[in-house]
């Protein structure tokens, strides 16, 4: 019979700071604490009293890697508060901004964080340039990331804390030669993305546990609109998403966690594909063929495959938009200040992101709320670890269990920077 404490002080190859503490007694797991240890930076307190116009850029600073997702989500919340309906072109530019983010962010996760686990390396940079397969992957990884970065920079001005998107439109519009370059770069990485999909389709990792999934299922624009499908036959309008969330305080974590109807659930790429794979771009679906039959899946490691598939969708839909549309300068849509509450919901790389803002007639913010994907996944992650450890205890050395857990957590692609902004929690 095994009894031990297992502690991982600070996880590596994830966004931000997290640790893990597990206690096992006589082959039984007594507790699993997945702790988000980033110190709070109190954004939802800091936003009070600031002008609405400044809010999206402030909230982008919640997280470096997801910054453009926070930016777009906050802009949507502010526009809803002011009663602004963005133009068709603005929506396409926001979609391209989001596609650039998804390509860059998923690629960072899949090549730099996860691929070393599959190839038995400590770091992506340890891949051997003299071995054809590893040489190819090194080049693929940095080229795919660079193409996403190029797209976001062309459309939004930067891939981190983008300066062009604003409430009511864009400050700058992509030029023709930049658009042509982007199409060439995206077309060029397509074979690399297909290779990546094959790797994750055949990856040897597997862990199944039935859980619930939730995602914003697209009406027209993937990631930006639609209703929130909870996988239980209901599709909630964005404005009701806040009521769906049940905040659960984990006293050992700097972040708030969430349940729905007393149960944990998962958000992210796998949830999106489980609930809406039929909405993928036709060119992607054509290339993917039977690979899509894998979804819906309960194997958490298929979140990696789902991210690779989403890169392909983002590439294909971006190419279509960039080749079919001419982008012309448009004035920013403005509206008078009014007392209102605005809600924004989008799909960020790691799942459903929710921003709520309450603004006064003077245009100053009264209060707000931000719910991030990793907070929603936190309890699901703990429940998965619990099950995984119980399955492994009898015959697996402690070090190997720790490695298996790290791989599992990495598959969720958690983002601790996002999760530890301030949420108003009270400890009993």
């Amino acid at each position, binding site marked *: 019979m095994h009894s031990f404490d297992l502690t991982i002080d600070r996880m590596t*190859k994830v966004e*931000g700071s997290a640790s893990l503490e597990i206690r096992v007694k006589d082959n039984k797991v007594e507790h699993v604490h997945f702790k988000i240890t980033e110190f*709070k930076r109190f954004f939802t307190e800091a936003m009070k009293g600031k002008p609405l116009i400044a809010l999206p850029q402030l909230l982008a*600073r919640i997280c*470096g890697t997801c910054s453009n997702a926070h930016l777009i989500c906050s802009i949507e919340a502010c526009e809803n508060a002011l009663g602004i309906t963005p133009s068709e072109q603005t929506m396409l530019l926001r979609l391209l901004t989001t596609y650039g983010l998804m390509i860059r962010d998923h690629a960072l996760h899949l090549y730099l964080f996860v691929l070393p686990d599959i190839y038995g390396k400590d770091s992506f940079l340890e891949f051997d340039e003299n071995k054809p397969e590893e040489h190819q992957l090194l080049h693929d990884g940095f080229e795919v990331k660079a193409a996403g970065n190029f797209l976001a920079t062309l459309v939004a001005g930067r891939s981190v804390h983008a300066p062009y998107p604003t409430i009511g439109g864009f400050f700058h519009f992509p030029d023709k030669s930049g658009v042509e370059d982007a199409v060439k770069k995206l077309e060029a990485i397509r074979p690399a993305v297909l290779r990546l999909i094959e790797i994750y389709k055949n990856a040897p990792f597997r862990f199944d546990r039935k859980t619930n999934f939730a995602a914003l299922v697209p009406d027209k624009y993937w990631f930006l609109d639609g209703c929130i499908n909870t996988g239980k036959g209901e599709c909630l309008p964005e404005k009701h998403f806040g009521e769906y969330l049940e905040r659960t305080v984990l006293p050992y974590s700097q972040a708030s966690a969430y349940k729905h109807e007393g149960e944990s659930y998962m958000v992210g790429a796998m949830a999106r594909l489980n609930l809406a794979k039929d909405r993928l771009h036709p060119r992607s679906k054509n290339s993917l063929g039977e690979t899509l039959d894998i979804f819906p899946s309960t194997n958490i490691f298929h979140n990696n495959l789902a991210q690779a598939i989403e890169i392909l969708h983002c590439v294909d839909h971006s190419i279509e938009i960039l080749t079919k549309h001419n982008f012309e300068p448009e004035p920013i849509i403005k509206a008078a200040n009014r007392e209102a509450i605005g809600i924004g919901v989008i799909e960020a790389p790691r799942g459903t992101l929710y921003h709520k803002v309450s603004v006064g007639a003077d245009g100053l913010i009264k209060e707000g709320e931000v719910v991030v994907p990793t907070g929603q996944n936190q309890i699901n992650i703990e429940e998965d670890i619990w099950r995984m450890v119980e399955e492994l205890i009898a015959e697996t050395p402690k070090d190997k269990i720790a490695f298996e857990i790290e791989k599992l957590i990495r598959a969720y692609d958690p983002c601790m920077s996002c999760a530890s902004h301030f949420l108003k*929690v009270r*400890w009993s």
Partner: protein
Amino acid sequence: MSNDSKIKIGWFSFSCCEDSTVIMTEVMNDHWREWKKIFDFRHARVLKTKNILDELDIAFVEGAAASEEQEKKIREIREKSKIFVAVGACAVQGLPAGQRNTFTEGQKKEIEFLLARFGALPKVLKLSEVVKVDAEIPGCPIDPNKFLEVVNKLVGEFQK
């Protein structure tokens, strides 16, 4: 080039949004071949699991100090690094990570129980308030060209 003759690099993140890490990994898209040859990434949690903090040539540090434990770690990095570079607005200016320093008394009261619970410092500190900083790369986010300029200058000094 053997690891012994490479420039020993550390990349560390404290209280911030880690945007400098993202910019660094984007700059890497164009420079990874060269960096693979000349840098030994001794300690970079974003890139690897087996991290060693012994003797570094250059430490790049993003983020501000939000707890005594972080302060202690920042001092240790300083002691073990020939050159200590503060990267990004939170490291250089302490903001926005330290926006609670600017809160009103009412706002400070709202958050004090959380500061106590997690052992946070009463005031978030920029890196130069904790240790001697040799070079600064400001910006939120940092300018990739400015980052490269500093990196290339330091590499030149180590390769003399």
